[in-house]
């Protein structure tokens, strides 16, 4: 039996466009399953906020599926580019909104709330803590400045008094070591 899981992005988009055809809902579900994680990542990359990224997924998929249903997507074979384009537009809008919120926060000193991203709840942070402790101090500072403090390699280089190229090398090595440690069970054995 044919399933949409093996279909190309273009075929999926075509199936959604063909209103009234059997199994349109199935095609929409597969389209969502395929693109939602990519939109979420895109949202996290630009908005650095899990809730905002999940909102973006809903909005982008809503627009995409509505446009496909109405036959308003010109080239369904380029559906990935279409989804990316919608994501870009919506992120710009959200950033403008966030900028206004930030201004309000600065003016009225509203307390900031901090929450762990729900989408990454499956990660074993106890194990990650052990893996992080195994890194050299310089590696640990570099990854924390990158991922937590959201500093670019140039910023980190200035902060630590080393070359930007070195920061990239240290960062790459540290991430690789963390990844290996998390998957090999090295930390769990110690």
């Amino acid at each position, binding site marked *: 039996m044919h399933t949409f899981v093996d279909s190309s992005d273009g075929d999926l988009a075509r199936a959604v466009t063909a209103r009234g055809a059997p199994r349109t809902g199935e095609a929409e579900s597969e389209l969502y399953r395929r693109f939602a994680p990519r939109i979420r990542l895109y949202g996290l990359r630009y908005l650095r906020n899990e809730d905002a990224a999940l909102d973006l997924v809903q909005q982008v998929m809503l627009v995409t599926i509505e446009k496909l249903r109405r036959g308003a997507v010109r080239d369904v074979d380029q559906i990935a580019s279409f989804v990316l384009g919608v994501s870009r537009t919506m992120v710009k809008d959200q950033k403008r909104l966030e900028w206004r919120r930030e201004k309000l926060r600065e003016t009225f000193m509203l*307390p900031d709330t901090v929450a762990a991203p729900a989408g990454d709840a499956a990660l074993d942070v106890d194990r990650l803590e052990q893996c992080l402790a195994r890194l050299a101090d310089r590696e640990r500072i570099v990854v924390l400045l990158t991922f937590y403090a959201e500093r670019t390699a140039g910023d980190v280089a200035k902060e630590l008094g*080393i070359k930007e190229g070195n920061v990239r090398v240290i960062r790459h090595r540290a991430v690789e070591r963390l990844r290996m440690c998390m998957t090999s069970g090295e930390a769990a054995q110690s």
Partner: protein
Amino acid sequence: MTTCQDPIADGTLLDYWARDLADDDEVNRVEEHLFVCGDCSARLHAMASLGAGLSTLVRQGRVAGIVSRALLNRMQRDGLHVRLYTLTPGETVPCSVFPGDDLVVAALRADFSAVQSVSLSVRGPGDSPFSRIDNLPVSRPDGELFWAMPAAAARQMPSMRLELTLASADAVRAELGKYVLEHTASTPPA
């Protein structure tokens, strides 16, 4: 779904996530690929999850070792309660951990003007080794070195005297300062 024939290099994915790609064309090229490629998107997701896990650890105050000024600033901005003890060479400072503290940090002041990198040795009762950090680059000649310990770990410590020795790790080893933390165990809540 097919395996990616032209995967984005790990270093490029990392640079993309850290906003370190050289130009917009490169960013666009990566994003176009990520939206059509489930494999590379999944690799980026794994990397992003690792980053989110690191942020979670920091927000829970689960960071030990040397941290930077930028990292501390960001933690305080995020609402972490950082108990900071500043020590100059030869100084003895009483310290403890209080309810609500997330992180305890010793800021060690020294003249770093003639050194490239330093080592820090921390010794406990009976000259027992407590912690050791080697060959850490220093960036500012008039700076401080921040040694951090999770408040949760400090709460478990009995009252004790910790002796910290900071030395240059360059070809000619020179002592930069000795410091003492007189730790008083925190009183368990009644």
